[in-house]
C-alpha cells in the first residue's frame, strides 16, 4: 500500500490551511473529510478574520476551498474516518471507503453540535427540530418555538427567533442563563419570550412533525405545544475515531505547543484540540503550525 508523508483529516479552516502548507512544502499528502469548511461554512457574518472586514461564512469557505484546490490537492470528500491506528512508524487511517497509510497525520476534524439525547430527537430532526437556527429559523415565522440551552449560541438563536416567531420559550437546565448580558436582557425584556431555568427536556413529541416538547421543572413534567425546537447546547469534538490519543475532560485532543499528541507522528489542530480559544483564525494558524512541525518531524526521522 502507498505510504503518504501526511494525511490530513478534516477540511475546515485548520485542515485546509494545513493542506496549503503541505502543498507548498511539496509533501506527498491526502486530505480526507466529510465536508468542506466545517463550522466556518455555517457561520453567518465574520468580521474578525484579518484582511476581511466583513465576509460571510460561505464566502470565506469558498476562498479557503479555492486556495486548497489551487494546488491540485488529493481530496477525499464525504468520507468518514472510522479509526486511526499506529503500528511501528506507520499510521493507518481506516475510513468508510478504504484504508490509507501515512508517516504523519493531522487530526483537524473540528466539532459538531451536541445532541439532547432524549426520545424523539432523532426521529424529528429536520421535522421541526434543528441544530441550525440561522438556516431553518425563517421557516418558523408566526409559530411557537423553543430554544434549548442557555449560552451565547442559545441566546443568539433566541434573538433571531424573537423577530419572527409568535412565542419563544428558552429552556435552560442551569439556574440562570449564561452568555452576554446585553443579549440576556433583550430576551428577558421581550413579552414574547418565556425563560424556564433549571428545566430539563425529557422528550420531543409529534406525529409527522414536532408538535410538543416534554419538560421537567420543580420535579413535575409538563407538555408545551409548539412547532419548532432549536437545540443550542454546545459542541462536542469529532474525535471518536481516535482511541489511543489522550483527550481532556471535554473530549478534546490534548496537544503541546507543537500540535503533537501523545503519539509521535499524530498531530492535531483547531477546534478538535484543547487549544485555548476556538476561532476561525486560530484554527487556521494551528493548521499551519501543525504542518510546519510535521515537516520538521518527517525530516528528523529516517523511515525504513
Amino acid at each position, binding site marked *: 500500500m502507498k505510504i503518504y508523508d501526511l494525511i490530513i483529516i478534516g477540511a475546515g479552516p485548520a485542515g485546509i490551511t494545513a493542506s496549503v502548507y503541505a502543498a507548498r512544502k511539496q509533501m506527498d499528502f491526502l486530505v480526507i473529510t466529510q465536508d468542506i469548511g466545517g463550522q466556518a*461554512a455555517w457561520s*453567518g457574518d465574520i468580521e474578525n478574520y484579518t484582511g476581511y472586514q466583513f465576509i460571510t461564512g*460561505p464566502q470565506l*469557505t*469558498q476562498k479557503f476551498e479555492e486556495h486548497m484546490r489551487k494546488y491540485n490537492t488529493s481530496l477525499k470528500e464525504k468520507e468518514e474516518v472510522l479509526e486511526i491506528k499506529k503500528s511501528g512508524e506507520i499510521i493507518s487511517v481506516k475510513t468508510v471507503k478504504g484504508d490509507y497509510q501515512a508517516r504523519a497525520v493531522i487530526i483537524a476534524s473540528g466539532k459538531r453540535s451536541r445532541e439532547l439525547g432524549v426520545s424523539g430527537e432523532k426521529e424529528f430532526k429536520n421535522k421541526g427540530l434543528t441544530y441550525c437556527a*440561522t*438556516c431553518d*429559523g425563517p*421557516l418558523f*415565522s408566526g409559530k411557537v418555538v423553543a430554544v434549548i440551552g442557555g449560552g451565547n449560541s442559545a441566546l443568539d438563536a433566541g434573538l433571531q427567533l424573537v423577530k419572527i416567531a409568535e412565542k419563544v420559550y428558552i429552556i435552560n437546565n442551569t439556574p440562570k442563563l449564561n452568555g452576554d448580558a446585553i443579549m440576556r436582557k433583550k430576551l428577558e425584556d421581550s413579552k414574547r419570550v418565556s425563560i424556564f431555568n433549571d428545566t430539563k427536556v425529557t422528550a420531543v413529541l409529534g406525529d409527522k412533525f414536532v408538535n410538543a416538547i416534554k419538560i421537567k421543572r420543580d420535579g413535575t413534567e409538563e407538555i408545551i405545544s409548539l412547532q419548532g425546537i432549536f437545540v443550542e447546547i454546545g459542541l462536542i469534538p469529532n474525535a471518536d475515531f481516535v482511541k489511543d490519543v489522550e483527550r481532556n475532560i471535554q473530549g478534546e485532543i490534548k496537544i503541546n505547543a507543537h500540535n503533537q499528541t501523545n503519539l509521535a507522528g499524530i498531530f492535531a489542530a483547531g477546534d478538535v484540540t484543547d487549544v485555548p480559544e476556538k476561532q476561525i483564525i486560530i484554527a487556521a494558524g494551528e493548521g499551519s503550525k501543525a504542518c510546519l512541525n510535521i515537516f520538521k518531524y518527517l525530516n528528523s526521522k529516517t523511515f525504513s
Partner: protein
Amino acid sequence: MAKSVRVYSTPTCPWCIRVKQFLKDSNIVFEDYDVGTDQVRAEEMIKKTGQMGVPVIDIEGEIIVGFDKEKIKSSLGL
C-alpha cells in the same frame, strides 16, 4: 432543453448560499423560493420532502435535500 430547477431556501442559511452559488457558477438557470417569507412555497417544500430542512433542490421532480454536490451534478449531467 435545460431541466427546470427550483431551489427552496432561506436568505440566512449558509448551505443555501453555497447551492445557489454552485448553480450560478455552473450556468444553471433556477427559480429561487424564499420559504422564510413565502408560506405557500414553504408548504410545498414540506409536502414534497416530508421535512423542514433547507435547502431543497427540485430538478424536474427529482428532490435533493441539502447541498449534495454529487447528486446535483449527476442529475444535471454536469
